[in-house]
């Protein structure tokens, strides 16, 4: 394989989650994080999972990533049962999770170095392409601590894209950023998604963000974590987070979300607080 081949767009994968349950035993007792969750994400689809914190969104993402195993149910990627992590499913975490002992280029190269059949020169070419894609080619040799929060997440995005995965799993990647930085990233992420053709699952607790990015928005409710509702977003792309249509759709979804997250018997106050939606 050479760099040009490594950069060819790859066929996005179809994900099937079927009747997946997951519980944790914590110090405070037993906790049902996911209860019989089923979800199908089509090839190249951009799906947003929304819900207040504690409703199992990260748990589901970790299961799809293969970082964790479900108690019951099935997880299938492109017809193959998911057993452990795989380079075709890359993850972007809320904390950038970049390695401080490597510079920016070194971080993007990390996953590429584990990819066989590439010469060191090809790897660097591929890494530079993705740094260019996220607009940071000038910062190839910067140290991680020198970057702003938004730049760190851009590097994390480049690092996740570099091994050319079929699926991109994003766990509240922009939650810690300021609004201006975030809006720029919405535009860039939509462009990159169209260019690189990935299946994306994007977790957020920000409804407006979900409507801006997703083809579909899926609502979760906590205690136990369940899928409650889903909305197709048919607004034309590329979407502007400040547009009126988008805002009114977000308002409607938020209204429904609130109904689900104010249950009669609040099991855990912290988990049932009103969502901090946009």
């Amino acid at each position: 394989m050479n760099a040009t081949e490594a950069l060819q767009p790859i066929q996005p994968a179809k994900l099937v989650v079927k009747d997946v349950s997951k519980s944790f035993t914590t110090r405070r007792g037993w906790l049902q994080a996911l209860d019989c969750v089923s979800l199908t994400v089509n090839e190249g689809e951009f799906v947003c999972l929304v819900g207040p914190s504690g409703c199992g969104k990260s748990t589901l993402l970790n299961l799809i990533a293969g970082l964790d195993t479900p108690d019951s149910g099935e997880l299938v990627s492109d017809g193959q049962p998911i057993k452990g992590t795989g380079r075709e499913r890359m993850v972007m975490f809320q904390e950038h999770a970049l390695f401080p002992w490597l510079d920016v280029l070194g971080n993007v190269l990390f996953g590429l170095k584990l990819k066989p059949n590439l010469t060191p020169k090809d790897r660097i070419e591929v890494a530079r392409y993705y740094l260019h894609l996220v607009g940071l080619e000038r910062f190839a040799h910067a140290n991680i601590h020198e970057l702003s929060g938004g730049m760190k997440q851009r590097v994390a995005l480049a690092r996740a894209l570099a091994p050319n995965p079929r699926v991109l799993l994003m766990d509240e990647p922009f939650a810690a950023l300021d609004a201006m930085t975030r809006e720029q990233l919405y535009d860039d992420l939509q462009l990159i998604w169209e260019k690189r053709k990935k299946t994306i699952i994007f977790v957020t607790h920000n409804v407006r963000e979900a409507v801006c990015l997703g083809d579909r928005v899926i609502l979760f409710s906590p205690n136990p974590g369940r899928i409650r509702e889903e909305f197709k977003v048919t607004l034309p792309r590329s979407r502007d987070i400040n547009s009126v249509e988008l805002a009114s759709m977000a308002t409607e979804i938020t209204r429904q979300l609130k109904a689900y997250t104010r249950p009669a018997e609040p099991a855990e106050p912290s988990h049932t607080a009103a969502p901090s939606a946009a």
Partner: protein
Amino acid sequence: MKRIIVAVCFFAALIAVWQSLVTAGVYSPVLLPAPNQVGHYLLNALADGELQSAAWITTKRLAIGYSIGCAIGLPLGLMTARSKYLSDTIGVLALGLQTLPSVCWVPLALLWFGQSEAAMLFVVIMGTLWSVLIAVDNGVKNLPPIYTRAARTMGSKGIHTLVRVVLPASLPYVISGMKQGWAFAWRSLMAAEIYVTIIGGYGLGHLLHFGRELNAMDQVIGVIFVIVLIGLLADKILFSPWEKFLHRRWGTASN
């Protein structure tokens, strides 16, 4: 440049104070020789090769013992951090032995190994090993799990994760542990050399000891000077580059 001038001035002033104390005759010249006498001793000892050979022998002992100590301590620390059983056994043992001042190994080494090179090595290894082990163990245990999780998603596992993620991520701990191990080893080796005369070769500690026996204060001060110099050099050569790397990458305070 300015910093160099300041440093040079400081040490020049120090020598000047020393010289003036000698000139004023505050202390007996037997107890406090003049700076030039010490310089004279150092030149003589250099000329007949005594100093170089002692410094070489000491450094060699230290280098070998320290390398062995690190080579055992590093993997052991990785293992104790990852296994509860090893942590409860070797980890606890290391914690206990690390609190033992490393000089205390000298009498034990003498009884076990006699007045031999092995005794010297043993003391240096004991000084190094436990500090390094505990530092690595600490570093790995305090590792944010997000690093290994991120690495796993990128296809890293087993030895690769250990060498490419766990070890570099705990580098700040590892380096400070290795530095402490070096300090302990250096101190205990000096103690061993002062107390133990061995046939194998005389190190700097021995020169110090002979200086005392001969009441040769110029020798004692001269050798101390060399010992300090070696300590400084080791710090600059062995650890400074790593500390600069840590400052650069982690963005911690730098000078």
